[in-house]
């Protein structure tokens, strides 16, 4: 079997393969690769409890973002509204099902999966326990990250508000504020580096 390296922890830059010795970072310090400048490590000051709190908040905000309309439009006394998943679902027939599926996956399913998996890992870590399926959960989190695009949906919704407002009366809904908060929360959570998650239980035995 493979042998982990002994002694001081080594970091290998994933972008250029340069070997570095890990150093202890002060608050808000980042460690960048000396060869290519890639950020190798980032010191964040969030504890497991704080991360759990952020994830629970993200779950609630996700619920709100999907239960309330992003925006409502009005034409001649008639109203329609759009929710995050509603926008994808309405296109789910014929050839438009293809982009609709990509939208549903990147704007709804994957963010939901990420929140659920983070909750799972953190809830167990909170009590110093290793969550069942720990390895697989972290690998799934890592793989799904590039395809989770809440921020793009937020910007798209804002563009749609502006676009439609030139023809009809548009009212932004609670959903759009929830979506903005969700984007901020998921961005904070995604800044926590993979190494933190993998060493989670070494730090909290």
């Amino acid at each position, binding site marked *: 079997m493979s042998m982990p*390296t002994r002694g001081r922890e*080594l970091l290998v830059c*994933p*972008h250029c393969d*340069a070997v570095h010795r890990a150093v202890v970072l002060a608050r808000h310090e980042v460690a960048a690769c000396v060869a290519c400048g890639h950020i190798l490590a980032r010191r964040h000051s969030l504890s497991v409890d704080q991360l759990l709190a952020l994830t629970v908040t993200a779950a609630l905000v996700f619920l709100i973002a999907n239960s309330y309309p992003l925006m409502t439009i009005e034409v001649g006394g008639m109203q329609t509204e759009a929710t995050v998943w509603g926008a994808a679902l309405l*296109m789910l027939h014929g050839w438009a099902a293809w982009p609709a599926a990509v939208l549903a996956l990147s704007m709804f399913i994957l963010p939901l999966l990420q929140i659920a998996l983070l909750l799972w890992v953190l809830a167990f870590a909170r009590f110093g326990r290793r969550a069942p399926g720990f390895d697989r959960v972290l*690998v799934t989190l890592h793989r799904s990250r590039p395809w989770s*695009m809440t921020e793009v949906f937020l910007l798209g919704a804002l563009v749609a508000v502006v676009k439609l407002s030139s023809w*009809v009366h548009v009212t932004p809904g609670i959903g759009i504020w929830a979506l903005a908060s969700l984007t901020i929360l998921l961005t904070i959570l995604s800044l926590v580096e993979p190494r933190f998650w993998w060493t989670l239980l070494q730090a909290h035995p």
Partner: protein
Amino acid sequence: MTPVRAIRVGLVACQTCGLVMQRGPVPSPPTSCARCGTRLRERRPRSAENTLAWLIAGVILYIPANVLAVMYVSGVGGGEESTIIGGVLSFWRAGSWDIALLIFTASIAVPATKFVALAMLLWTVHRGSSWARKQRTALYRLVEFIGYWSMLDVVVVALTAALLKFKALGTAEPRLGIVFFCGVVVTTMIAALSFDPRLIWDMGANDGH
């Protein structure tokens, strides 16, 4: 000072969790990560070939994505199909130059930048060039970062179609172009994810390989 490179000192880092392991001189080299179980590979397999294949697919899809209409809008005064560039122009003419610029950047400039950047990276890696490695790695990171913002127009079309449902007073429907456009975003994202930036550093004059 140039740092030591893992591949030359028999080290390998897991691409999923970052654990650094020794490749030798153990009798049988490790095949999977000791921490997360991911299959260990020194480089992404057939990285350049895969990137090139997905890149070509993206370029091909980019043509119908721009030629075909992405949306059909009808109102009291009749219906009209619009392409991506048509949408940008109508915002521009209506005076919303900021939105026009935003859609132009996300839908036209970002995919084009990705094509040029990835093609340049593949070409220089193929030639084993040691020119501007740090800058080329930074360019790769830019390609990775800007990738998914092109989904913007797909979101706008989906939301507009979901909202404008007023029969004679106004309706909007997605058109075939949006399928190709979505294809461009997905294929170029896979192309960027297939590219192994360490290839930029693997060959060259001062690194006998």
